[in-house]
């Protein structure tokens, strides 16, 4: 059960309270980082960096501030920075069977593991720009509203819409190739 977090205690450097924040949010942070970066190790590093940054910036937290929203902003920005840094390295896996399995009705009830999720996203987002990949992941996978994406990334609504539209076209075109 998620308990109410006392931002006052965190501002004061209470590590037990901070441990609770880590416990409550670690899975969510890791999941967002994995879905944006499509890499398990990077997701782990970003999760660590996110909480360390939260600790360093704890004094700027205001009483009653939505700490989950604050954490989301950090993890999204860190993941986006990583996408931009590695945009020239295209080492996409090419396992078309993965998509066939994902679509298959026999496999529908089986839960995907992190590796499969990362591979599927990596293949879907192959060829997208970092911005397109970020917007696509946040809107289509994390199911965030355009306003939430705007608040988290600082992008304008028009930019979000155009990047999402281009991303969808590319993803669909890429998927068709795999499923031929």
């Amino acid at each position, binding site marked *: 059960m998620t308990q109410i977090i006392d931002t006052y205690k965190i501002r*004061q450097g209470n590590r037990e309270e901070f441990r609770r924040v880590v416990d409550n949010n670690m899975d969510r942070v890791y999941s967002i980082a994995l879905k944006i970066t499509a890499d398990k190790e990077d997701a782990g590093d970003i*999760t660590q960096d996110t909480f360390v940054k939260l600790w360093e910036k704890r004094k700027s937290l205001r009483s009653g501030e939505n700490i989950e929203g604050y954490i989301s902003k950090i993890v999204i920005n860190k993941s986006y920075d990583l996408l931009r840094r590695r945009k020239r390295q295209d080492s996409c896996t090419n396992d078309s069977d993965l998509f066939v399995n994902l679509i298959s009705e026999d496999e529908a009830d089986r*839960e*995907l593991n992190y590796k499969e999720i990362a591979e599927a996203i990596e293949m879907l987002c192959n060829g997208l720009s970092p911005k397109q990949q970020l917007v696509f992941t946040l809107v289509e996978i994390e199911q965030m509203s355009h306003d939430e994406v705007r608040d988290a990334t600082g992008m304008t609504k028009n930019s979000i819409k155009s990047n999402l539209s281009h991303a969808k076209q590319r993803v669909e075109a890429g998927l068709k190739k795999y499923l031929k």
Partner: protein
Amino acid sequence: MEELDKILRRIRESKPGMESRYELRESIMEKVHKRANYLDYFFAWTDVGWLRKSLAFASVIIVLFFCGQQVFMTNRIDKLEKRMISINTDNILQYQRENVMANSVLYRDADRKTLADSIKVATDDLLDLVKSYRDLQLKYENVQNEAKQEKQENRKQKL
């Protein structure tokens, strides 16, 4: 596109348990522990909201009080300087032999440089000094006159 929707739905719905969750959490806490320092420990009280505001308010009051005090002191020093009288002691000693009231020189100019062996006294103190000197002088003259008169009377009696 139906296939894309299926894939996205499966990705969304999958919530696998994180591998090495405990290690990751401990690694985060260890990094956080390394970043916490003694300054954080000793000055954590500065994060208390009402205390910060009170201290800020108090510091403004202290600065204003200091500025006001400086203005007040400068004004008082200006007034005191106007009341100061500089007297050359050498001159006083010389003039005392003749007549202090007639010959003492009073310098009311505060900006004038004084000699190394000079003193500064307030007007009231100087006036008291002069008055007491004058009283003594009058008594001395009276005593002298009385002595003269006695001598004259003695001479008359002898004659």
